[in-house]
């Protein structure tokens, strides 16, 4: 951890300077130029709306902060939002709509399906898209396009980082199993996690680990009792809870009478952030780990982190900003830094500036790899336990893993190859 903090302290990027007011010009100069418009594409209706609102909150805070500090290149930033309804067609319509109204700098996108649909249109439309959540590996592999960047975790990097942490912290565990949704991302997350288990258990714990076949359930299923009964009979000690968000809540709620959480020594939820704990309250399984895009508590003392956290709590009253708030924020900061660096908002210039660029964000430095445009950034994890307070839960621990330790080498245009295959 100490090394990480030191690294963040020495790093100054254009965006950080902008936040501190260094790069700003006088308001007089700003007023003469048209604002720079950034297009946020995110689900703002339907079941995924909750994430879209977090994206929007983070992005809005970033735009306000940068504008207060004098803007970028003396111009203010302006947010244009479009609802992608988590549907590929609506996402492409949103992106084309933004492009035809003169917005070429796009960011956001939660669903990998939406990202995969927008990606091939970017080049023809002369636009850039910075992904702030969509995590499918193929976006920076076989579906790589020079106009696409990803500022947030990629599935492989995140899952292997989780595996690294459990290999270190739960070295005594000899076998893992999982319950996953029947989705592409569910399967690829688990495969990546297993890849990590097979690499990091020998490295960190000094022994191999047994992987017992994952159970798969329908996405959005309402009954998990059969799967729970099967899990109760398994010999595995670690459980990877691949089911996401509301499904994880339903499953854990139904599992409570069986004592599932007590049976396993550790439960890892790869990406539901606070949803499970916030929803289950006092019924939160003791010691549940969850992957999160950004955990504010891990970056106290980082000026960007603290300013974002304070602004978010002030505007919403919610003391637990979801990681997506940080990703929405980071998307704006990435553009601010790139525009500053390029001295222009032209697509080509911004792409050139983004490639290989490091920028400061609420979770420290992120660096876009030149080759595949994936950002190398920290992977965050938090651990929960029930509590006697009104909320009923608390955070009892967190981990920060440098993404560089778990990411694969870049191979744009080619599919990701796993080190080991799940057996």
């Amino acid at each position, binding site marked *: 951890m100490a090394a990480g903090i030191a690294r963040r302290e020495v790093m100054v990027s254009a965006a950080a300077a902008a936040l501190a007011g260094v790069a700003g010009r006088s308001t007089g100069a700003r007023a003469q130029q048209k604002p720079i418009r950034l297009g946020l594409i995110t689900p703002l209706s*339907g*079941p995924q*709306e*909750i994430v879209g*609102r977090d994206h929007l909150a983070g992005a809005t805070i970033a735009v306000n902060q940068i504008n207060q500090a004098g803007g970028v290149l003396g111009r203010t930033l302006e947010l244009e939002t479009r609802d992608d309804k988590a549907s590929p067609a609506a996402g492409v319509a949103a992106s084309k709509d933004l492009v035809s109204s003169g917005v070429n700098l796009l960011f956001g996108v939660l669903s990998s399906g939406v990202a995969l649909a927008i990606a091939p249109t970017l080049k023809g439309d002369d636009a850039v898209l910075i992904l702030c959540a969509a995590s499918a590996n193929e976006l920076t592999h076989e579906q790589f396009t020079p106009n696409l960047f990803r500022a947030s975790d990629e599935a492989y990097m995140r899952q292997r980082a989780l595996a690294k942490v459990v290999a270190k912290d739960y070295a005594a565990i000899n076998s893992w199993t999982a319950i996953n949704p*029947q989705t592409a991302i569910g399967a690829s997350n688990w495969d990546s996690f297993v890849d990590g288990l097979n690499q990091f258990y020998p490295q960190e714990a000094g022994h191999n680990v047994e992987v017992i076949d994952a159970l*798969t*359930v*329908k996405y*959005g*299923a*309402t*009954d998990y*009792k*059969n799967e729970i*009964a*099967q899990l*109760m*009979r398994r010999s595995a000690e670690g459980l990877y809870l691949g089911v996401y*968000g*509301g*499904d994880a*809540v*339903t499953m854990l*709620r*139904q599992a*409570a*009478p*069986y*004592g599932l959480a007590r049976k396993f020594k550790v439960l890892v939820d790869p990406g539901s952030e606070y*949803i499970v704990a*916030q*929803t*289950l309250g*006092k*019924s939160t399984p003791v010691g549940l780990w969850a992957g999160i895009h950004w955990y504010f508590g891990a970056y106290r003392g980082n000026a960007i982190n603290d300013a974002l956290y304070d602004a978010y709590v002030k505007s919403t009253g919610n003391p637990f900003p979801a990681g997506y708030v940080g990703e929405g924020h980071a998307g704006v900061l990435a553009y601010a830094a790139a525009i500053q660096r390029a001295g222009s908002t032209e697509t080509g210039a911004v792409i050139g500036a983004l490639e290989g660029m490091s920028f400061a964000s609420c979770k420290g430095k992120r660096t876009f790899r030149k080759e595949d445009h994936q950002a190398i950034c920290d992977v965050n994890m938090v651990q929960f336990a029930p509590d006697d307070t009104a909320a009923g839960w608390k955070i009892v621990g967190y981990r920060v893993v440098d993404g560089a330790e778990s990411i694969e080498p870049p191979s744009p245009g080619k599919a990701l190859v796993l080190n080991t295959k799940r057996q």
Partner: protein
Amino acid sequence: MLADLAGVVFNGLFSAMVVFIFASGLTLLFGVLRILNFSQGGFFAVGAYLAFSLTRLLGPALPLWRFLAIAVVAGVVVGALGIVTERLVLRRLRQVDGAYSLIATYALLLLVEGIVKLIWGVDVRSMEPPAELSGVWQVGDVFMPTYALFILAAGLALFVALEWLLHHSRLGKLMQSVATDPWMASVLGVDVARMQTWIVVGGFFLAGIAGGLLVPNQALSPSLAGTFVIQAFGALIVGGMGSVRGTFMAAILLCVADSLASTYLPGVPGVFFYITMAALLLLRPQGLMRGAQL
């Protein structure tokens, strides 16, 4: 493998009762008014959210009687919404083609979903079952959560009550008459419009009470409204023209088949529900209870 057969069947029966409880109101509306009500899921969600909020409001303790009382209150409130819906929407659909009522109730589903979101927000919520129902019974290898046993009992009780009401009470005879020949009923002096309003109220009441009873079963989120609708439609149609008995049997067949297949046949989870549905519709093209009443 065979050791857990009992458990798998138990879990299938549980799912069947969940689907039946949800579908019971739908059956009433379809049986009498011939309306395939898409918005049922929306009103189910209203019932569930209401129960959630009432439980929160009344403090941390949740004795069983209060849980049941809250479910009834949710049913009554949703039933009252039924009067409004009937006046504003459903009544106007009597004269038009069935397909229109489908679209109208689909639009209503969107509307109710949006309103639920405005009132309760988009955060995922969840509620514990009452203390009496949060344990588990273990018989041999089979785990039976008490909440699941309760839902099983509730589904069965609901079935028996509806069967009695429809087939043995005077009100039931009257409802059946209105269902089979509303024109003749009105000529004989029955206030059919009022009767139909009450049936809508009854159907909505059942949606609300289903919401109240099933809150602890799954997370509450804006997508709850669409969760059971398709499965319930399946049970309803496989059962045959809105017959309660048929819906009950179909729910059991579909859910137990799905439960067995998802455990013993590797494949796509959830798909067996639909395979069974298609197969049953081919075997009994008019539903299980062909020509039966309600």
